[in-house]
Structure formats: structure tokens, C-alpha cells
């Protein structure tokens, strides 16, 4: 009898242990999802800002049509992207194009003095920062979640209930580091 009770107690303890791991996994996964939602909000915000920016800048920047076309193109690419990887790719191209625009602004003192543009520029900087902070938070959450999935003993529970590792949101630095082309025509 006593052995049976001990056996039962051990079983119950093991079950409780697994339940707590399962709950921890769920919590981490929800945090990852929430962090992703935050990035998504900020990316949308940037997409919304762009038409406004183009509209303000158009009248001043007559020589930068290529950059503006790129911005519009990458924006629509980014809006149609599906997976995390695709999104990261398109968004980094968009960041690069916006960076180029920012460099060119230096050549247009009238534009730099325009209050509407200054306000827009602050909004754009803030949105870029928010994207990168949201990304930072998302990647931290993904790291913790993935660690939990890979480590023993939580990997057993993760395997049983089909918890899958999440993808990091990595911005490829290629576009951002690209030197803006200077044209003399």
C-alpha cells in the first residue's frame, strides 16, 4: 500500500513538473507572438508614413527620382512579404533606400528648413528606432524560447506538443551599408 502511494506521488510530481514546463513554453511562445505583433505595428506605421514623405519631398528633390522610385518599390514589396525572412529582406532594402534619401536631404537646405519635413523626419527616425527596438525585444524573446525548446528536459515536452523554433528577425546589413551613389547629371 505504502509503495503504491509513493508511486502515485512520484507520478503526480512528474506530471506537475511537466505541466509547469508546458506552461512556461506557452508563456514564452505568447511573448514571442506579442513581440512580433509589436514589430508588425511599427512596420505598418513606416509604410503609412512613406506616401506622406514622398509627397513632401517631391517638390524639393527633383534629382532623386531613382531613390524615390526605389522607396515606393520596396515599400510595396515589404507590404506583400509573408514569412519573417521575406519581411526582414524587404524591410532592410526599404531601410537602405530611406537612408540614402536622408543622405541626399543634406543637399536641399530649403527642405531641411521646412517644418513639415522636420516633423516628418522625427517621425521617421522614431519609427525606425521603434522597429529596431521591437526587433531587439523580439529576438531576445525568440532566443529565450528557442533555448527552452532545445534544452533538457523542456525539449521533451516541446517535442511532445510540437513546439517549433521561431525564426530571428535579422536585418541584412547589405542595404544599409551600401554607399549612396552620387550622380553628376
Amino acid at each position, binding site marked *: 500500500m505504502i509503495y503504491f502511494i509513493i508511486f502515485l506521488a512520484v507520478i503526480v510530481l512528474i506530471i506537475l513538473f511537466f505541466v509547469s514546463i508546458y506552461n512556461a513554453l506557452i508563456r514564452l511562445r505568447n*511573448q514571442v507572438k*506579442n*513581440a512580433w505583433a*509589436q514589430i508588425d505595428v*511599427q512596420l505598418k506605421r513606416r509604410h503609412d508614413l512613406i506616401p506622406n514623405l514622398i509627397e513632401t519631398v517631391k517638390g524639393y528633390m527633383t534629382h532623386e527620382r531613382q531613390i524615390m522610385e526605389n522607396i515606393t518599390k520596396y515599400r510595396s514589396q515589404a507590404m506583400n512579404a509573408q514569412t519573417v525572412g521575406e519581411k526582414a529582406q524587404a524591410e532592410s532594402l526599404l531601410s537602405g533606400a530611406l537612408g540614402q534619401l536622408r543622405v541626399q536631404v543634406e543637399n536641399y537646405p*530649403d527642405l531641411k*528648413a*521646412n*517644418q*513639415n*519635413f522636420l*516633423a516628418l523626419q*522625427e*517621425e521617421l*527616425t*522614431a519609427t525606425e*528606432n*521603434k522597429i529596431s*527596438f*521591437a526587433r*531587439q*525585444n523580439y529576438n*531576445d*524573446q525568440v*532566443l*529565450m524560447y528557442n*533555448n527552452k525548446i532545445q534544452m533538457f528536459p523542456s525539449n521533451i515536452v516541446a517535442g511532445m506538443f510540437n513546439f517549433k523554433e521561431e525564426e530571428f528577425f535579422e536585418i541584412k546589413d547589405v542595404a544599409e551599408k551600401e554607399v549612396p551613389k552620387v550622380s553628376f547629371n
Partner: protein
Amino acid sequence: MWELIQSNRRKSLILFFGMGALLILIGYVFGSYYDPEAGGVVGVFFAIVLWVILSALSYFAGSKILLAVSGAKEVTKDVHPQLYNVVEEMKIAAGVPFFPKIYIIDDPAPNAFATGVKPENSAIAVTSGLLSTLNRYELQGVVAHEMSHIVNRDILLMTFAGVMLGVITIMSDIFFRGMYFGGGSRYRSRSSSKSSGQAQVIVMILAIILAILGPVLAQLFYFAISRKREYLADASAARLTRYPEGLANALEKIANSTHKLRSANKVTAPMYIVNPLKREGMKLADLTSTHPPISERIKILRALQQGVSYNDYQRVFEMIHGKKEKIIPDSVLKESIAVTPVIGLTNEDKDFNPIEARREANDAVMKLNDYNFINCKCGVKIKIPPDYNKPIVVCPRCGTRHQLR
């Protein structure tokens, strides 16, 4: 973050009971001094009632009182977009659901504080001087520091600790005044037996010792915790922004400012990011100052070259301090993941335009004082004082007529 809150809660509880015990002891001894038979209970009762009232007051109205005393005014996004954005950025970086209210204090001395016992009703207040001296990254560092105070629940801890300290100080004050004016126990003449007289003397000595040491002990305890929380908030800020240089530069600018904060006093001083009362002090002042020396905070932040995780901060702290002292709770150190800092933002100050920043800060203060702003199509910002009562204003550059409501 979760572990930080947990360990803070535990610490709050230990502090809570520790100081509470000191409070009850003081209440009992002082009470017994006045009336050996029933006084102890009355003293304890008095101490607890005083504490409950003051705690409730600071819990429910503390942050409102603090904000009102410092002359802070709540701002919306349009008053100072950059400040609002920076706060939102830090909210996102911390991954928290609440959005602190934002206040601006019209004061040329650069400083900032956070308040609110619950994160949901928390607030961050900065001076207009801070806005006009710091660039975006430095402002981010300061806001990250304040956000960390909120996220780590430091404000709750400091509020309760502060109230305990206040009650203990008030009680010993009352005791000394009573001794001075009343000359001692009312019941002394009644107690005729020798042994009770002896007990009376012991109680009196004990009471005097407690009256002298109680407030000092409570204060040292309070200051020690306050300083630890400052380091911790610096560590969290470095982790949030991934750019410790921003906060380091900000602290340097704040320390070098010659302005003195008008609205600060002894009670509100521990709340600010940099102690607004004392000039950066000598080592001797360390034990009794609410804030760690700024130079040391800057040195630690600047030494965070390889990483900005809590582990790195603890390591660098010990290296610079030269002694082992736990700044970051163990449970957090165990969980903390490697975090690399952002490098290469150092030319940011080149983009910073001090005139523009000062104008932005002035505009914010003007907006707080009900000035009306109109952005003309030609790019000119027209500022209309509240007592301007004509229906139309003409843009000084392009001559456009703007209709006023």
C-alpha cells in the same frame, strides 16, 4: 525582467518587515517611557496609525503630490514629439504593456524622475533644460533609466521605504520635543517602588538611544537601497538601449550643468536621475548620499565595451569598484543572455543642433502655456500667444492668411 521584479518584491518584503519591526520597537519604547503600564501599546498603536495614514497617502496621491510640487505639466505628443517618441521607443524596447504619462518641468537645470507606485499609473518627468541640452541618444539613455525604475518596481520600494523613514524620524522628533518640554514621564511620581524606578531608567536610556540611532539607521538603510537601485537602473538602461555611451554622455552633461533645480528638496531628491541638491561628492559622502557618484556611474557605463548584459555590468562594477558587491540580484545574473552593444553611433553629436534643441524645448514650454502653433505651407512655424484675439494671422514670410478659431 520578471526575475528583477521578483527579487525586488522579496527585498521590499524584507525591508518592509525590518523597518516595520524597528517602527514597532520605537513606538513601544517611547510609549513605555511616558507610561510604563499601558504606554507601550499606545505607542505602537500611534506608530502604526501614523504609518498607515502616510502610506495610504503616498500610495494613492504620492505621485500626484510629487508632480505638483515639482511644477510638472502633463504633455501630449504634439508638445514635444521627440520626447514622446523616445518614451514610446523605450516602452517597446522593454516590451511592457503600459505607457507612462509624460511630464515636462519648466526649469533650465537638466534632470528627470519617474514616479507612480503602479506601472499602469506611472509617469516620467523631465525638465525643459534636459530637453535643450541632450541629443536624441542621450535623452534615450535618460528615459531608459527612468523606464527601468518603473519596470523594476523601484518606485513602490522607495515609496514605502521613504514613508517608514519619515515616520521613524517624526516619532523621534516628537520624543525629543516631549523630553525637552515635558521633562519626562508623567507617571514617574506615581511609581514609588525601587525596581520600577530602575526599569524606568533603563527604558529612558533605551528610548534615547533609539531616538538617536533609529532615524540614522533607517536613513542608512534607505540610502543604501536607493544607491543600489540607481546602479541597477543604469544597468537596465544600458541593456534597453544597447548604447551605454548615450546615458554616460547624458550624465556627464547633467553633472556639468551649472543650473540648480528650483523645485527640488530633500524629500524629492532621491527620485531624480542625478541628485539635484548635492554637487558630486567625495568618497566620504558616499554612505549618506542617495545617489552613487556620477563619475563612477559614467566610468562603469563607458567600460561596457564588450557587452551590455546584466552580467557585464556586474563584472565591470566589481572591476571599477575594486570590491565584491552584488548590484544585480543572482537570479537575474543566472538568466541573463548575452547582449552586444551598438557601436559606431559616436558621431551622433555632430547631427545634434543645440539651437534647434533649445527651440524645441522652448516651444514645448510655450505649448504648455497655451500658445497656439500653426505650420504654414511655406515651412514657417507661427507661434500665437494665448492673449492674441484677432481672427486672422498673416505668415511673415509668404503672406498667407491663416484663420484662427
